[in-house]
């Protein structure tokens, strides 16, 4: 593939690249960061990246909301003019899931802070070894 081909691949499919980069940022934060809150943020970025991926695959250029008025009833609807609503609906659920996960994670982080007086992983592990 030529250089132009590569550039084309990146530009034409930019939504995928964005989600991949975001996902990698999230994963990196979860693996490399030593602070638990930063890890939790990384986790949220990871989940958001996937939500973005779903939403982006539903869009179409020049299409509008899939809402039909009374006068449309019984008429033929051109699929090219409306975007696919299903991924959005799915992602509503996924957002709820990610909020719930975030909530549990933060609650656990609080519990950890109460026990060890820190959120830095190295210090926590030192405390665990001590006890």
């Amino acid at each position, binding site marked *: 593939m030529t250089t132009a081909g590569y550039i084309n691949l990146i530009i034409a499919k930019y939504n995928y690249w964005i989600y991949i980069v975001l996902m990698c940022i999230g*994963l990196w934060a*979860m693996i490399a960061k030593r602070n*638990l809150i930063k*890890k939790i943020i990384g*986790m949220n970025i*990871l*989940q958001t990246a*996937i939500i973005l*991926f*779903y939403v982006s*695959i539903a869009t179409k250029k020049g299409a509008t909301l899939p809402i039909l008025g009374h006068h449309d009833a019984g008429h033929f609807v051109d699929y090219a003019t409306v975007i696919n609503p299903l*991924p959005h609906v*799915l992602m509503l*659920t*996924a957002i709820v*899931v990610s909020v*719930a*996960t975030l909530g*549990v*994670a933060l*609650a*656990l*982080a609080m*519990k*950890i802070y109460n*026990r060890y007086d820190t959120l830095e992983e190295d210090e*926590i592990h030192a405390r*665990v070894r001590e006890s």
Partner: protein
Amino acid sequence: MSAHYPIFLVVAPLMAALVIAIIARERPGLCPPLAAIALTASLWSAAGMLCRVLAEGPFSYHIGNWPPPMGIAYEVDHLNALVLVAMAAVALINLITTRQAVASDFTGREGYFYALYLLFCAGTFGILVTGDAFNLYVLLEITSISGYALVGLGHRDAALASLNYVFMGTIGASLYLLGVGYLYLITGTLNMADIFSILPRLFGSKVVVAAFVIAMTGLFMKMALFPLHGWLPNAYSEAASPVRSLIAPLTTKTMIYVMVRLGLYVFPPDFTFNHLLFAKVVVWVAAAGIVCASVLALSQTSLRRMLAYVLIAEVGYMVGGFWLGNRMAITGAILHIVNDAAMTLCVFLAVGSFTHQLRDDRFATLKGCFRRMPWTMVVLATAGLSMIGVPPTCGFFSKWYLIGGALTADHWGLVAALIFSSLVNAVLFFRVFEIAYYEPFADPHQEHRPALSYAEAPATMLAPMLFTAAGLVGLGLLTGRIVTHIIDAAIPAAIL
């Protein structure tokens, strides 16, 4: 009524969870019976569905009468009917057995514990029964989130272990969601049967390959396949004992079921086993995982941590067996889902009995336990023999199919790994039995032996434990029927 079993199965514990959460503070005494009733209802529905499947064959239930692929369908076939009955039984038995341990471990918070317990069960049953790939994700997260909370309820370092579990679990579930996204992208549907019928036309597509590999990797993480097992030992050993004996049998086995479901009924088996190098690599990874986890189990100093590693090795059994891709090996993997759930329940109930009576389960505490807690030791011994693979316990028969399948596939690596793991299990369990049998040393010819108080668990704990132990033998003796009537029908005829 019986037509609505599939939804009743999930809704009964879900609704009961809500009610329990509401009345938790005012009427804590009502919570355990209510939970028991809900789970009994689930077990009843599961059994009813199994009977119906056996009599009439697979059927599907359209939620809210919305026909698939638009609506969500719950599909019941031989595969999930079998696993459902096993899982519902495990959840109910554990609920009954750990009643007293819950009362002492979670004083004042029992209601919330039972609410989470039921949510976890509702999610698990939903995963097992659903025929919709995205619905599965949602239920997976319901199960996982209540699982995180349950693990986090434990003492000491439980919160840390649980947060680690949250991280690993979320990555796993997100990967699954991503895989489903790619599947949706290429097929335009989320209904499993629909995807299955569309996929054969798309075998050449790289998107399908990506979806397959990403979703499976996510599942491997959730099921703690070595080397993605990092979260499991801490999460299981830090959790309170009633939680441990719930999530240990249910979580990993449910994920194995999802893997089987995806591999046989979402992706066509031909694609799963032959199209990529993936299957061959996974079998070797599983074999290596069995060996490594077994070796790691040897170096543990408490019963539950040892068992956590044994459990990781067992995951390797099922993954290895399934990806061999021949009928005998897949039979072994499916059979082992049921058998391993029963065995895991049995050992962890015994561990729970130790922690409840002796406040600890380190090997040093177990000295003289054959005298102190004879019946609990009988339960542990039965489960141990089953994990070693001694006939007529059920562990032997799943090993029979797994090794037989590996022989059929000429995969000597997996054969060796399975035998090795049996030998290591023998060492592991006999080390425990030895400690419980000999120490503290006594002079046999002296009348006064060091006094060890009799510390057996109360009968309400013992009776269900002994029932489970007997069930291990019963399951073993029923192997022939389970295989011919249920598992044979659960595996597509194309697989030889």
